[in-house]
């Protein structure tokens, strides 16, 4: 990775786009109910007119800012801005109640920076090798990887397994609507001319994250500024964001490294996501910790582990997207959309043909974490204002911008109708605990899942054992089975037992 890419960064305004993306992502991450995914999808129509690097760097800023921002509101008012922040909230809000919100914010930022940078370095170092390796990764292997991504996302994101399965299948089914790509046959159009072209990703994202959230806002008792401030410890008047030496010692160098590695590896695994990275790192840190008793009562170690891991996940998540063309979550899928929009095709040739685009993008992952800390020192004491933003201004803005952006991107009112319907249905589903993440991932991966299945079968002449004969494919299938056992069978049992114990 050459220093040229750093130069590109500071010579060509990219840093401005990055900072802009970071603050947008941070804001959307921090406001409960809004997500970085939504931020990217609102901006997606605008990226049509941007140069590809500016667009990509903006997306990176949003991605990282969104993951970090989710923890901030959680720490301050006990409402996680994003699911990835659940662990940070668990520990952070305890500290806020003790009047130590600044300590929690300090460590969530500082560890985010360390995790993000280590993850970025890993990615920069490894991408070339993974990219070369991907030459050996064939269509049946892709099928197995996609299958694993779908299954893992389903296992991790659903409390009720059957509901997770239903949500995933619904996503897969919607993705299959349209003209068949192999045989030029229109299918599943229900006789409606408008959906012969299928449902588009941008429409689904706008429906799932913007419209559904607005319905959701109207379903519950609205929180006023004073309700929110009540949750915040008003005695907080000290804002010293410097991490202290004894705290850093308590966390320890190896803890950062360990959590970064866990986060990064979780990132590479498509479908797992930031929430899983944080949870794993937290559990491992607890195991290694000398102060286990502090966990759950405001442990700085716990915050550090979770935030290091979920930020190390971000650059890792980009690897399967760049090298195999398989996005592991909605944000990377939208970034992939930016790639294809500008004619860049992921895969083994990407690092050879498009190093000038990918290089600066990876550097962006290295620079954004620094922004996290800078913004804390500059604006940290005002973070509490973010959830106070007036909803009568915010939600009209979200709803209208999402709709008008969708129109600008497609010039089709039909897409707006789809988004509204999908938004309403997703609201009904999530009100009944059907998870939206596996739904979305099913929709995103659906087409390549089916294509890789059909192409594999054509290549093998109809021999199903092709998925067992390739060592990579076999390995991934075995890994999937192990995941099903641990995440789907063992983990729920353990949680059940724990619950029973605490009840007795």
């Amino acid at each position: 990775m050459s220093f040229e890419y750093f130069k590109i960064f500071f010579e060509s305004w990219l840093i401005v786009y990055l900072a802009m993306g970071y603050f947008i992502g941070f804001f959307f991450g921090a406001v409960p109910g809004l997500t970085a995914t939504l931020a990217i999808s609102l901006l997606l129509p605008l990226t049509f007119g941007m140069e590809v690097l500016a667009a990509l760097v903006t997306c990176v800023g949003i991605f990282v800012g969104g993951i970090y921002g989710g923890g901030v509101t959680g720490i301050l008012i006990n409402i996680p801005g994003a699911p990835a922040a659940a662990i940070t909230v668990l520990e952070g809000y305890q500290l806020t109640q003790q009047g130590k919100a600044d300590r929690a914010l300090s460590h969530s930022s500082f560890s985010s920076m360390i995790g993000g940078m280590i993850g970025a370095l890993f990615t920069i170092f490894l991408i070339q090798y993974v990219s070369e390796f991907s030459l050996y990764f064939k269509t049946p292997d892709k099928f197995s990887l996609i299958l694993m991504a779908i299954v893992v996302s389903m296992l991790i994101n659903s409390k009720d397994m059957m509901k997770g399965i239903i949500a995933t299948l619904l996503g897969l089914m919607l993705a299959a609507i349209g003209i068949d790509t192999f045989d030029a046959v229109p299918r599943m159009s229900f006789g409606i001319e408008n959906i012969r072209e299928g449902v588009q990703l941008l429409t689904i994202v706008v429906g799932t994250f913007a419209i559904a959230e607005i319905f959701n806002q109207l379903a519950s008792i609205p929180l006023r500024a004073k309700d929110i401030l009540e949750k915040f410890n008003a005695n907080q008047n000290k804002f010293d964001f410097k991490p202290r030496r004894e705290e850093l010692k308590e966390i320890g160098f190896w803890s950062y490294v360990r959590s970064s590695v866990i986060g990064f590896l979780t990132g590479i695994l498509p479908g797992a996501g930031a929430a899983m990275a944080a949870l794993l790192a937290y559990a491992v840190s607890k195991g290694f910790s000398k102060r286990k008793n502090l966990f759950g009562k405001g442990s700085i170690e716990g915050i550090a582990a979770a935030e290091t891991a979920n930020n190390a996940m971000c650059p890792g998540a980009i690897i399967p997207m760049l090298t195999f063309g398989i996005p592991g979550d909605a944000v990377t899928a939208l970034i992939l959309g930016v790639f294809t929009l500008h004619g860049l095709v992921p895969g083994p040739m990407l690092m050879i043909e498009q190093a000038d685009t990918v290089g600066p993008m990876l550097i962006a992952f290295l620079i954004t974490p620094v922004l996290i800390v800078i913004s804390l020192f500059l604006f940290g004491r005002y973070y509490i204002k973010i959830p106070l933003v007036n909803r009568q201004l915010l939600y009209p803005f979200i709803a209208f911008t999402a709709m008008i952006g969708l129109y600008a991107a497609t010039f089709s009112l039909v897409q707006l109708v789809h988004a509204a319907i999908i938004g309403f249905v997703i609201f009904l589903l999530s009100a009944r605990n059907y998870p939206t993440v596996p739904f979305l991932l099913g929709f995103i991966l659906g087409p390549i899942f089916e294509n890789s299945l059909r192409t594999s079968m054509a290549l093998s002449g109809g021999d199903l054992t092709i998925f067992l004969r390739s060592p990579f494919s076999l390995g991934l299938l075995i890994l999937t089975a192990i995941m099903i056992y641990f995440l789907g069978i063992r983990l729920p049992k353990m949680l059940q037992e724990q619950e029973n114990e605490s009840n007795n």
Partner: protein
Amino acid sequence: MPVIIMLFLFTVAYLVQAIGLPQGDLKNIGPGFYPVLLSVLMLMALAYQFFKERKTPERPQATVNKFHLVLLALLSGLIMMLESLGYFASALVFLLTFSMLLGWQLVEYHKDEAGKKVMIGLPLVAALTITGLDYALFKLVFDFNLP
């Protein structure tokens, strides 16, 4: 329960169409094979969930209320207005009414908040600033052709 029935009807319609398509063979999988597979799996999952919920009924965390119906009307209004009335008129109307709806919802739960601010002041601010902001963003900066 209503959700399961809704999904069930959707899946049945989906399956009927999928069966009508060429299925192909294992070497050349046809366009119908994969949708049939998905809808059969879906029907099985829905059946399981149906019987489970009949045994132990579940209560949804949120139900459809009058605000949702108004919002649906507003969204349809926006979609119908957008091309016929143009950007500015539809933006102003939608933003104003939606912001008022949020104000109405706030007052419904917190009576003491009632007043001109939430019903008129904020909606006006929302309508004017957001219309201008999005116009600047889409039309002036990025040069999209707005309706």
